[in-house]
């Protein structure tokens, strides 16, 4: 162990698990909260392709297996860029889907 690392500061094991498989956003538009979509559409710092959510896939994760609902959503643009949303608050709707 690195002597400079304070007790408790050591790297922890990864706990994140896949909750919902990657799926096209355009097939989930009625399910995904509008603010997720608008955040991409309205961010002028993004590439033009990334501002079109319908061109993305989305997948969902839980930060740890015990989480009752997904709390991480990753949008994958066709250009390969990813846009992550980490849901830390309460009282919001968390979309879930099942890909068969």
């Amino acid at each position, binding site marked *: 162990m690195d002597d400079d690392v*304070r*007790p*408790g*500061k*050591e*790297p*922890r094991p*990864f*706990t*994140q*698990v896949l909750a919902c498989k990657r799926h096209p956003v355009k097939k989930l538009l009625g399910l995904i909260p509008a*603010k997720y979509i608008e*955040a*991409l559409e309205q*961010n002028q*710092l*993004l*590439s033009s392709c*990334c501002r079109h959510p319908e061109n993305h896939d989305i997948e969902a*994760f*839980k*930060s*740890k297996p015990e*989480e009752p*609902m997904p*709390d*991480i959503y990753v949008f994958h643009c066709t250009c390969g*860029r*990813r*846009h*992550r*949303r*980490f*849901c*830390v*608050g*309460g*009282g*919001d709707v968390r979309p879930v889907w099942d890909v068969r």
Partner: protein
Amino acid sequence: MATYVKYDTAIQKLCDKLIDAFGSTDLWKAIIHTDAPVTATDSVLTDLVQIAGSNGYTTDGNTITFNSTRTGGTITATGVDVVWTASGGNLGASTTGRYVTVYDSTAAAKDVWCSWDYGATFTVADTETFTLDFGASIWTMT
């Protein structure tokens, strides 16, 4: 929601009037850090190791549009989502961001309040985004 972990000293600092968590008087910020929070001993911002202040990440983090209100005996804190957009390279020149902490930036010592664990390290590459979604409430306190 991701597991909310309050630093042990936060409540003491609230009672000591070092942290003002009611209303929108104090400026609250969110940071991304690489080291695991030790809730028993981490107390102020300098106890944490942030990603570097570059490529869209500002050292000491982004401001939260924060407010809290009381209903009956419960205080509910709310905040507008924080979005980091990488520009010119990986956000904070980092591939090892993992934790997010919220702190009171007005407090002289920049006292930390709570943290969340993303569950894995993450990289925010050039023109990618990382959004901290506070939902309908960041926390409630009774």
